[in-house]
C-alpha cells in the first residue's frame, strides 16, 4: 500500500466545483500553503474548482494561502470561528460587499463538529453559545438543570492537511501547535490530502506516537521545505510565490 502521489497537481486533482474543503491550520501554523497554491494554480489554468465551501479556523492573512484562495474568487462560503486577522483585507472586502457567505462558529464547537463528522456522531449538545446570537434557531435542551445547544456534525468532500512526517500508509505526525485542526479534518473528509515534510517507510514512525492513523488519509505528497504563512506574510509575499 502506497498512498503517495507524485506531485501537488495530482494531489489536488480530485477537488471539484461546489465541494466542501476543510483546510487545516490555526493562523499560519499547520496551514498547507503548497496544497492551497496548487489548487489556485489549477483554477487559473482551468477555471475550476470554484464555488467552494471552505472550513478553516480563520479567513486567511495577507495574499498567500487561504487568503489567496479567497482572493482568486474560488470560495463561495467560509465556515470559520475567527475571520479577523492582522491583515484580513481580502476576506473583509468581499464580505462587506456581500460577495462571500460566512458561517461563524465558536472555535470549540467548530472543532467538535468536525470531530463528530469524522466519528459518525450526527449531532451533540454543547453549553457553548447558549443564550447568544449564534444559538439562534438551534434546538435547546436542558440536562441536569443546565441548558445546552444542539449542534450538527460537519463533513467535507476533501481535507487539505499539513503534517510533519507521513509513512506511505498515511500514518501522520505533526509539528507543535501546527497540529490544531489537522487531525480532526483528516477524520471528517471523504478524501484527505496531506502534504508532509517527510515521507518514510511504514514502520519508521513508532506506533505509539502516530497522531493520525492511516485509515483517515487517502493521498500524500511530499513538500520537503514547506512555507510558513507567518514567514510569507512578514516578507509581504503574494501568490504566486517566486520559485
Amino acid at each position, binding site marked *: *500500500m502506497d498512498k503517495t502521489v507524485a506531485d501537488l497537481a495530482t494531489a489536488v486533482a480530485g477537488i471539484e466545483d461546489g465541494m466542501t474543503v476543510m483546510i487545516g491550520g490555526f493562523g499560519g501554523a499547520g496551514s498547507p500553503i503548497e496544497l492551497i497554491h496548487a489548487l489556485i494554480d489549477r483554477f487559473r489554468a482551468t477555471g475550476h474548482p470554484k464555488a467552494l465551501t471552505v472550513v478553516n479556523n480563520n479567513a486567511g492573512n495577507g495574499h498567500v494561502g487561504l487568503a489567496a484562495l479567497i482572493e482568486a474568487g474560488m470560495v463561495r462560503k467560509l465556515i470559520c470561528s475567527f475571520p479577523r486577522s492582522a491583515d484580513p483585507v481580502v476576506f473583509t472586502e468581499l464580505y462587506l460587499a456581500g460577495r462571500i457567505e460566512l458561517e461563524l462558529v465558536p472555535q470549540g464547537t467548530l472543532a467538535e463538529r468536525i*470531530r463528530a*463528522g*469524522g*466519528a*459518525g*456522531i450526527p449531532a451533540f449538545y454543547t453549553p457553548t453559545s447558549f443564550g447568544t446570537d449564534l444559538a439562534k434557531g438551534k434546538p435547546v435542551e436542558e440536562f441536569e438543570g443546565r441548558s445546552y445547544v444542539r449542534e450538527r456534525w460537519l463533513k467535507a468532500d476533501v481535507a487539505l492537511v499539513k503534517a510533519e512526517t507521513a*509513512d*506511505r*500508509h498515511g*500514518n501522520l505526525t505533526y509539528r507543535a501547535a501546527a497540529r490544531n485542526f489537522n487531525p480532526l479534518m483528516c*477524520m471528517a473528509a471523504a478524501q484527505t490530502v496531506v502534504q508532509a515534510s517527510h515521507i518514510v*517507510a*511504514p*514502520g519508521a514512525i513508532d*506506533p*505509539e506516537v*502516530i497522531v493520525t*492513523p*492511516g*485509515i*483517515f488519509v487517502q493521498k500524500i505528497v511530499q513538500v520537503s521545505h514547506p512555507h510558513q504563512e507567518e514567514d510569507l506574510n512578514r516578507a509581504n509575499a503574494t501568490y504566486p510565490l517566486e520559485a
Partner: protein
Amino acid sequence: MEKLSNNQIAWRAAQDIVAGSYVNLGIGFPEKVAQYQPKGHEAIFHTENGILNFGESPKPGEEDWDVINAGKKAVTIRPGTAFFHHADSFAMVRGGHLDVAILGAYEVAENGDLANWSTGPRGVPAVGGAMDLVHGAKRVAVITDHVTKDGKPKLVKACTLPLTGVGCVTRIYTSLAVIDIEGGRFVLREKLPSISVEDLQAVTGAELVIPETVADLIVPEL
C-alpha cells in the same frame, strides 16, 4: 448435503476483500478470514481495542498481552501499525472509515437485520463492539453456517432473537451459498454446484430471488 467448512467459508469471504481495504473481523470465526487473504492483496486489519494494521498470532510463549485483539488473543505488530484509544477506534468504526466488517450471525433477515449478540434472556448478556460494527463499515458482511446445529434456517424472514442492527447486512457467505441483500430480499449469487436451488430454498427461511446467472461456489480444500 455437501457443505463448506468454516475455513472454506472464511476463504470465500477473503476473496472479496479488495487490496488496500480496511477491515474489521468479528471475534471468533470471522478472525479466520485474515489468513486467507490472496497473496499480494494487502488488506489492513483493525481491532476495536486500539490497533490498526496488526499481524498474525505470535508463537506460543512469545505473546505480549498488551498487544491483543478484540477477542483478547495475542497478535503482533507490523510495519505501519498504529495504536490509539477507544474513542478514536470507534470513530473509525462509527464514522464509516472501515471498508468491510465481517461478522458472525445467529440470524440474518431478508431486510438485512442482524442478530448476533444475544440468544435471549438467559445468562449474562454481552454486546461488546457488535452494535457499533454493524453501522461502521461501508460493507457489512456475515459469514455463517447456512443452518443452525439443529438444521433450522439462519437466513430468515424476520429475526426472532434480539437484534444487533437494523438493515445493516449486505452480503452473506454461508456454508452453501453467497447471498446478497438487495431491496429487502435475499438474492442468490453463488451456490455449491452439488446443491439444487430447490434444496437451498428448503433450508432458507425466506424466499431466494434467483437472478439469471448464479455462479458456482468453488472453494479449495482447506
